[in-house]
């Protein structure tokens, strides 16, 4: 049985950019991590084997880029986790979790609709909620002036920055 601390260790080994502890009573999740896109599928596979399910994919656009948050919940023990991936808004591509959680197909299509994300290897990446001929930029992308940095949005919680480059990009330093 993996507790939150074991997951943090796990993600540290997987090459996480940062690890965070959260206040479950306030933020609703226990731990989260920013992962490099390459480590996403292997981490999700471990979660899947431990009986976790994918609750949703909640993306948002911050100053540093698009933050894609995967919320997980366990079927065995309570304790919500979040994995995050930071994607460049110019080339918003990241791997699909379809092979691990088939339900991810729809969540990814929804995120693709709203943010213009491209999920590689999603079997059916066509518009889900929005029309196929919607003009203009994806509707939930923000204008440049309206963007806030990740550190201000509280996504890092009590963070332990591992990758100095990531920390510098988030304006946090070591």
């Amino acid at each position, binding site marked *: 049985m993996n507790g939150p601390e074991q997951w943090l260790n796990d993600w540290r080994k997987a090459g996480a950019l940062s690890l965070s502890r959260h206040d479950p009573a306030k933020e609703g999740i226990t731990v989260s991590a920013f992962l490099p896109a390459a480590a996403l599928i292997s981490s999700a596979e471990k979660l899947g084997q431990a009986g976790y399910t994918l609750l949703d994919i*909640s993306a948002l656009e911050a100053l540093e880029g698009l933050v894609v948050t995967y919320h997980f919940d366990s*079927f065995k023990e309570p304790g919500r986790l979040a994995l995050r991936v930071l994607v460049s808004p110019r080339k918003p591509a990241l791997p699909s979790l379809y092979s691990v959680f088939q339900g991810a197909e729809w969540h990814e299509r929804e995120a693709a609709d709203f943010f213009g994300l491209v999920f590689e290897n999603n079997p059916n990446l066509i518009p889900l909620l929005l029309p196929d001929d919607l003009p203009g930029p994806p509707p939930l992308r923000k204008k440049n002036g309206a963007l806030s940095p990740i550190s201000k949005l509280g996504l890092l919680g009590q963070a332990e920055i591992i990758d100095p480059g990531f920390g510098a990009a988030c304006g946090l330093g070591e």
Partner: protein
Amino acid sequence: MTGCFNFINPLAVTEEPGTTAGDFYTRNFEKKAVPGRIILNLGPQHPSTHGVLRILCEMDGEYIVRCEPVLGYLHRMHEKMGEVKTPWQFIPNMGRVDYLHPLAWTWAFVGACERLAGIEIPERAEYLRVISCELNRISSHLLWWGAFVMDLGGVTPILYAFEEREKINDILQIITGSRLTMSSFRFGGVCTDADERFKSLAKEFIPYLRERLKMYKGLVTDNIILRRRLEGIGPMDADICRRYGATGPILRAAGLARDTRKDFPYSVYHKFDFPVPAGPANDCFGRYLVRLSEIEASLMIVEQALASLPEGSHIMEKAPKANWKLPAGESYMAVEGARGQVAVHVVSDGGPKPYRVKLRAPGFSNLSLFAEAAAGTLLADAIAILGSLDLVIPEVDR
């Protein structure tokens, strides 16, 4: 042939050469179809898709080989509205997301904002939230029950269910002010206090519904045709639920007694003694029984909450006003809705409007497993499976 009969000339209907019939989704679906099989477009206007769901089916006779739900016909972009409205202005939106269990959604959003701001609400308000949310859950399950039996061809039960729904609406109207898209929760409490009339009506309702549930068992649940239509149809085990993120009665019918009210106790649910029905079967009939047992569990909660309703104020002093700003940070609040885990993810940068509002609809995840569950079944069974998922399309599409 125009004249007294107003015949329409069939030759006037022509297709442009080079184009195929169907829209973008049909053409995309047809790419993988085996030639010679019928592509059936179930919906968006179809009697048993509960609104405007559309399902593309590849049919081999009466069997569904492959199917794909097409969403978006009731999409209203609530998430964008959450970013352009202040939190106060956004509360009524939550009542519109799921019109059958609006209070769960209101609670998820209001609760997420309260947690983020660290607001503690009076205990009486918590009790009123529990009572109204549970009554609302009962009314949602009752409507599902009627509509589900109607999907199976029994038209009468829905009219019985509406009789009870009317009573619940009469009761809830007193403290929520509305009968359908209730959104009476406020930051710091609820908008109206319960009066004596509310309490007496609610207390009368509990034994009344228990009697009616016995009648429903005799009239509908034990009907041999209904059982033969449901037993063994559409099994969904814990593994498919995990892979698709299904929650709520579907997961509980699969044998896992997971309920947000017990696992992540919010509000005052830990003070009440109520069962979480799970099993015994993971087929359509199991889901049917789980929902009927949940009505009884909700009645138990309402009974206990009414008996121990504390005195006090229904809303905190200095409750946030309309110009209230959310503090910066994120919060993920999940509540148990009638269809599963309803969750709202609020991210704020401290400005007057939330930075991002993400709505986690249980119906969205539950519907996504339909394609796998319905493959290889008869059309009539697929309709039964669809009904047993208890879909509310506005919630799926948001």
